[in-house]
């Protein structure tokens, strides 16, 4: 258990990588086989190369798993709770909310709001933060929408400012 704690992030990363060969073999046996491209020569077989990479990765994973289990890696990677970890988690949550809201309320509403909220979260006074959020959002929108002609998400209100 100590090992799991000391090398927590090593193990999380290990599991992340371990999911890849699993996904490759699973997809080769199902989706690729259904499409008829999981066997045959180099022209027809779209599964052989992914499988080869998967096999190599399994080998590497076994080796690396052993190293971590035997504490043979240079850096421990325990979970930590720093000064700003709470805020980092909160920022991630806010960003997810922003991505969900973006298509519905549009860039020109969502972006000043999230910028201002983040400024406040990081310790800037609310009034300054709101002004900063609006200014930031407007200036990047000016560059992308105005100068580069990107169509930003308009949302259900159909708002665009610089086009």
């Amino acid at each position, binding site marked *: 258990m100590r090992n799991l704690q000391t090398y927590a992030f090593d193990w999380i990363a290990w599991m992340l990588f371990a999911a890849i060969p699993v996904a490759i073999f699973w997809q080769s046996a199902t989706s690729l086989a259904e499409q008829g491209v999981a066997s045959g020569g180099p*022209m027809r077989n779209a599964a052989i190369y992914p499988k080869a990479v998967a096999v190599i990765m399994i080998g590497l994973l076994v080796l690396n798993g052993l190293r971590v289990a035997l504490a043979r890696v240079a850096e421990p990677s325990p979970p930590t709770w720093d000064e700003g970890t709470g805020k980092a988690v909160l920022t991630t949550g806010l960003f997810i909310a922003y991505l969900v809201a973006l298509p519905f309320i549009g860039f020109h509403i969502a972006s*000043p709001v999230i910028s201002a909220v983040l400024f406040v979260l990081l310790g800037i006074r609310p009034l300054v933060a*709101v*002004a900063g959020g*609006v200014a930031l959002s*407007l200036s990047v929108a000016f560059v992308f929408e105005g100068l580069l002609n*990107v*169509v930003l998400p308009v949302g259900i209100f159909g708002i665009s*400012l610089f086009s």
Partner: protein
Amino acid sequence: MKTIKMLAGALVCATLALPGAAQQFPERNIENIYPWAPGATMAASQVIADAMGQELGVNISVVSTPGAAGTKAFETALSRPADGYTIFDGYVAPLVLQPMQGNADWTYEDFTPLWSATSNSFAIVVREGEDRFEDLPALIAYAQENPGELRYSPGVAGGLPHMVGAKVLQTSDAVAQLVPYPEIDVAIRDLRSGILDFMIINPGVYTVNKDEVDVLAVLSELEDASETYDGAPRVQDFGIDLGMSGLAPMGWNWWLVREDTPEDVVATLREAMGAALNDEEVQQRLLDMGYVPTLYSPEQYAEIVGPVADDLQSGIDAVAWEEEQLQSLDN
């Protein structure tokens, strides 16, 4: 207090830009969803988009959305509202070919057409100074005698150039080893270094690589097509029947919008696109790039696109025939 002023200013801007009920289409920039990676062909769409945007007084940006043989672009555009702000750059592959092969669940009748844009014909080329085959019949004779020995690339496997190439080989009962390349520009490199024996290319690539290749035959029956390859002979000039006619053996695109787009919006778009395409300067710029403006009006859509589908079936069959031949060679 500066901050408050800024804020107020921003709010005023925002309210001004809110859509009023009676405002005229278009009031903001329009997107053209283009189905391939950036390159010469995208530049042709950009030329039309710029001219059409000028007519409308907004900017039309061409957004490259490659993937799934062009259907990703269609899916993307279909997921947008039917308000005329999203135009499909309707290339033949996602519009006709992919649905025929069961890879997409729409037909060309599910869209409202604007104008047809351009067409580009394909050609069979060998490397510059090739001395084994002086013309197309010599190449075909060699391939007949030595089945599977010549290696050729039409770019992507199963694409339109591949179909037309396979069709020519099938009608003359010749077999060559297919070597696909996702980017035809890269295949030119291997043609040059002797890895490939011949290729099927398009005018955009030809224009860039004129010094590297010799054109054996243009794969179209149309007079214009020969001109984009500096007057090279057409397949039928050698007495070989292509088995495909009109737009079928060519790459072409027809700009479209969603079926449920309001009529007044469609009318505005059609008028602007028609004006843009009929501008001689625009036409010349397209021709210089190797793309022939086809100038079919929205009304001609069904009558032009319908027959193409039948002809393409023979191309699909040719590809299947080729695969069979190559497989029997392997065994």
